[in-house]
């Protein structure tokens, strides 16, 4: 659409499963008559001959010859609707029409404003109480969010975040953490076809002030603050960004059970290592929340046992694109320390050194191919060097700065988990008190 605005007649080709999304996006850009053509899904893994069949076949949506759609989309006179586009306003009311609790619960579900679990209805009184959890004014703009970078960004203020915090069942004392997550501008409801979810890790004094759990069952669902902060992050993401509706603003083919709520506090008191937020530049006495996204795979281990290096190497090679986030019980962290790994950074460096794959397997990963291959071709390191490797040559998959470690758990078991999760950023909670 940017090319059209620049005066270049254009046709965008999509696979047919994205037809609704493509049209909704065109409408939101004021250009609903954008010319689009559709081939069948998938394109990935097809041979040149099969792709040629798409081109010589019919448009999967219109049923007309595909290339006729293309040629006619680029030529010929425009109509009145093409010339003016579509201007419109979508004002959102502050309050909904009064109704019964049952009807409002139904309305919220029908409008895709929930996660399909019952919500606490955001009455004026409850929202006012939530707002007492911060000194920020209700009309202060907190941020902007979108389901993906090429969709429109919606804006929100403190009051709108409070509404979603109420819906999640959160208490006012949790509100600064929830505001910090909202201020990240980073959605927990990405529309990605890869079915991502987000994780929030809380550090600093706020953890104990609001009764968060960093011990037994911290990853859930065994603590009110952990669960409702994580749920609030997901609900505010879908509602403040303008929706997370399947086939419209959510395209994750499998979905992700971690997208209900995933939030925990690091067990700083029992960890032998530096807290996560201190690693990210905060002081120990600061309160902060770190956002990770992806969560495409989860693996587990115990120990470290004698063969921990072999086990860890196998786990590290599981996902070529999303780097590992190691989450481990304090028992495991202390045993690592006993084995000479004095800091988180030493473990991170070991993981970076040992996360390896043959170049052939690394570059065959769909997302390495889609997202990193163009960078490699453009000469961006370290991808360019990895691209020079012969097919059977072993390449390093991650840089140390991409790998993270958090210590959590109640010391009932020397357990660790590895999530495929990319670090986004760490935000001050104190700013939002």
């Amino acid at each position: 659409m940017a090319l059209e605005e620049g005066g270049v007649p254009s046709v965008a080709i999509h696979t047919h499963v994205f037809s609704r999304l493509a049209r909704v996006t065109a409408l939101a850009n004021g250009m609903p008559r954008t010319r689009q053509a559709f081939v069948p899904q998938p394109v990935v893994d097809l041979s040149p001959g099969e792709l040629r069949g798409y081109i010589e076949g019919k448009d999967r949506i219109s049923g007309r010859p595909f290339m006729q759609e293309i040629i006619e989309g680029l030529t010929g006179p425009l109509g009145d609707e093409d010339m003016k586009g579509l201007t419109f306003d979508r004002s959102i009311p502050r309050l909904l029409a009064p109704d019964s609790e049952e009807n409002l619960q139904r309305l919220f579900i029908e409008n895709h404003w929930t996660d399909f679990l019952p919500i606490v209805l955001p009455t004026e009184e409850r929202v006012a109480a939530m707002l007492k959890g911060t000194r920020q004014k209700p009309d202060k703009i907190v941020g902007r969010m979108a389901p993906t970078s090429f969709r429109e960004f919606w804006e929100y203020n403190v009051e709108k975040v409070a509404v979603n915090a109420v819906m999640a069942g959160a208490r006012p004392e949790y509100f600064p953490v929830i505001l910090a997550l909202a201020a990240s501008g980073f959605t927990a409801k990405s529309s990605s076809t890869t079915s991502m979810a987000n994780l929030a890790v809380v550090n600093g004094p706020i953890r104990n002030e609001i009764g968060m759990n960093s011990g037994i069952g911290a990853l859930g669902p065994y603590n009110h603050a952990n669960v409702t902060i994580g749920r609030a992050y997901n609900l505010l993401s879908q509602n403040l960004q303008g929706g997370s509706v399947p086939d419209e603003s959510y395209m994750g083919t499998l979905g992700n059970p971690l997208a209900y709520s995933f939030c925990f506090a690091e067990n700083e008191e029992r960890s032998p290592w530096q807290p996560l937020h201190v690693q990210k530049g905060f002081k120990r006495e600061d309160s902060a929340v770190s956002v990770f996204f992806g969560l495409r795979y989860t693996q587990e281990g115990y120990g470290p046992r004698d063969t921990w290096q072999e086990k860890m190497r196998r786990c590290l090679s599981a996902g070529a694109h999303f780097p590992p986030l190691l989450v481990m019980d304090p028992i495991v962290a202390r045993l690592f320390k006993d084995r000479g790994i004095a800091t988180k950074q030493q473990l991170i460096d070991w993981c970076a050194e040992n996360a390896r794959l043959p170049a052939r397997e690394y570059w065959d990963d769909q997302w390495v191919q889609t997202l990193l291959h163009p960078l490699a071709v453009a000469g961006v390191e370290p991808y360019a060097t990895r691209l020079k490797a012969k097919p059977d040559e072993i390449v390093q998959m991650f840089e140390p700065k991409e790998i993270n470690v958090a210590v959590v758990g109640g010391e009932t078991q020397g357990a660790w988990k590895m999530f495929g999760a990319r670090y986004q950023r760490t935000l001050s909670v104190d700013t939002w008190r």
Partner: protein
Amino acid sequence: MASGLTVHDPRGFPPHVKGKRLAPRPESLDGKIVYLVDCLFDNSEAFMDQMRQWFAQNLPKVETRTIKPRESWVDDADMRAKVASEGDAAILGVGL
């Protein structure tokens, strides 16, 4: 229902949408330069190569040029400027 609970709308504030016109079209692509924009999705390069071959075989008077943005999912302003200054039309794909 006149009485009942009054609750907040949980949605954020959408941007104002301003209508945008399409670019004027030529009557025909004969003698024109059409940029094939490979959006860098997996296998889109192969798709665009088949598109290039189709034009060469079926509409030989159309000159096609393949171009790529510098990264996936990035609005490459330099690439757009090149297409706008040197091209007459563009086909983008295969994207979401």
